[in-house]
């Protein structure tokens, strides 16, 4: 969008935007120096520097086991959610059967329901089924909340895909599965990768469900972080946070750099 108003008349607008952007980005950047503090407190700037909080993270069973639980849980969620979500999105796109809209509605609904509600509801049901504090329970719950993202992403991908190509493959003798796997799926690989990445990140980051339905040996990283933050402020959190910030910012920054360098020079 262009505008007829010269840029100098909008300086106040740019200044306000810059302030909001500082407000958005600065807090996470403050965490990084905090993780190298030598003090036990949150004093800023840190009185001295040390790596003790990283040693604390990599040396404590509590943190390592929680990280391992989160990684396994997020990976399993990613695999299951992407697989069953893709199957459902494909079927909803191709099929013409009764109840299509209600089915889509049910699959998207977890996105709209407040997390606290799902969390206490699942807490109650899982307690009866013996699924509390189990990896299975965590994966099931996170599959539920990541499914809408897979369905939405894959449906968007399918919309821009020409189904006639799959028909051609089938008319040439491929069966439905082969045609899907060799012709359709490779062309949807961007949507597939986005779905998988989204479900992994959402599951890894999910806090409310974890706080309620995980614990003991299967406490997730977010659950341990939450209880640590609530009960005592331990700079180990800053070390964990710095590692998470690095992991979270690398992909988008890389994507920006790569997409920029690939562009032909104007």
């Amino acid at each position, binding site marked *: 969008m262009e505008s007829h108003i010269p840029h100098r008349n909008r300086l106040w607008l740019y200044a306000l935007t810059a302030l909001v952007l500082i407000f958005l980005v600065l807090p996470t950047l403050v965490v990084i120096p905090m993780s190298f503090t030598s003090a036990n407190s949150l004093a800023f700037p840190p009185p001295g520097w040390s790596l003790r909080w990283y040693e604390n993270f990599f040396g404590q069973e509590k943190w390592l086991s929680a990280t391992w639980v989160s990684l396994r849980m997020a990976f399993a969620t990613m695999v299951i959610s992407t697989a069953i979500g893709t199957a459902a999105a494909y079927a909803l796109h191709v099929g013409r059967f009764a109840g299509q809209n209600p089915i889509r509605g049910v699959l998207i609904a977890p996105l709209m329901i407040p997390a606290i509600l799902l969390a206490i509801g699942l807490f109650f049901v899982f307690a009866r089924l013996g699924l509390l504090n189990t990896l299975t329970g965590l994966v*099931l719950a996170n599959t539920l909340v990541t499914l809408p993202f897979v369905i939405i992403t894959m449906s968007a991908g399918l919309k821009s895909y020409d189904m006639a190509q799959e028909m051609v493959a089938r008319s040439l003798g491929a069966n439905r599965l082969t045609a899907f796997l060799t012709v359709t799926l490779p062309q949807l690989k961007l949507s597939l990768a986005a779905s998988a990445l989204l479900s992994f990140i959402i599951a890894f980051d999910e806090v409310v469900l974890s706080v309620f339905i995980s614990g003991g040996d299967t406490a997730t990283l977010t659950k341990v972080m939450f209880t640590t933050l609530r009960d005592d402020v331990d700079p180990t959190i800053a070390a964990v946070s710095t590692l998470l910030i690095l992991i979270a910012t690398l992909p988008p920054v890389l994507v920006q750099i790569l997409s920029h360098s690939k562009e032909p020079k104007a």
Partner: protein
Amino acid sequence: MSARALAPGLLGDNSADLAQERRRENRMMLALTLPALIVAGVLMLVPVGWLFSLSFVGADGGLSVENYSRIWTDGAYVAIFVTTFKIALLVTALCVGLGYPVAYVMAILPERWSRLVMLLVLVPFWTSLLVRTYAWLVLLQRRGVVNTLLQDLGLISKPLMLVNNMTGTVIGMVHVMLPFLILPLFASLRSIDCNLTRAAANLGAGPTRAFFTVFLPLTMPGLVAGTMMVFVMCLGFYITPALLGGGKVNMIAQRIEQSVSLFPTWGPAAALAVVLLVLTAGFLGASWLIVRRLKVEV
């Protein structure tokens, strides 16, 4: 099928087979949705249904609506609703005030600058919620960055209470919600035809008038959608108020959590949960209707 009308003798015998084939195909497609449907159905409908039925069980174990009537009559519950709505409204208003200019600037900046702004909006979006909450604790506490800075500048003599109260909660929530307002708003701003505002300027409207009479109405669908989403998410927000409120900010989600963890009283918690769900569905439905209406009028 039209092919049958064209060549009845040729395809007539096939049509029954084709119809059967189509039915078989649609059954197969339905089957493909089943795994996802079972997960969503069992894990969402069963807990929500259970909460719903629990909310109608009274203290004596019989069927009653006492859990609901208490919500309207008990002053403590009324106070929780007032606090929740106050915070949600304040956070939403701040998000609109701060987010609209950013989305607008993103839309008028040249592509590469706009992309940089987008990246800066997305970085917090990608950063873990708990990391950001921790960051605000570092910044806002008594000996935190903000207080130290203000004292060094001589603006205040005693540290301000910025966290473990409403102030910290609102700041943290605005930080979480801003991207949810900026991103949909930017999407709708970008699709606006700038010739319309230019035409308004040609016809003699000043920048302010062109903005309020031409531009703002065109952005309403995106603005309503983003605003409603933020507001609804605020109503059920748990993590940030729990950590930055320091137990002093009592919103609906906090109250539900307390009833579950402190006392074995499921009825009132379930009733609160059902009310929260109804409110959420109501506001989302209303915003959907408004957006649809606005789009038709434009």
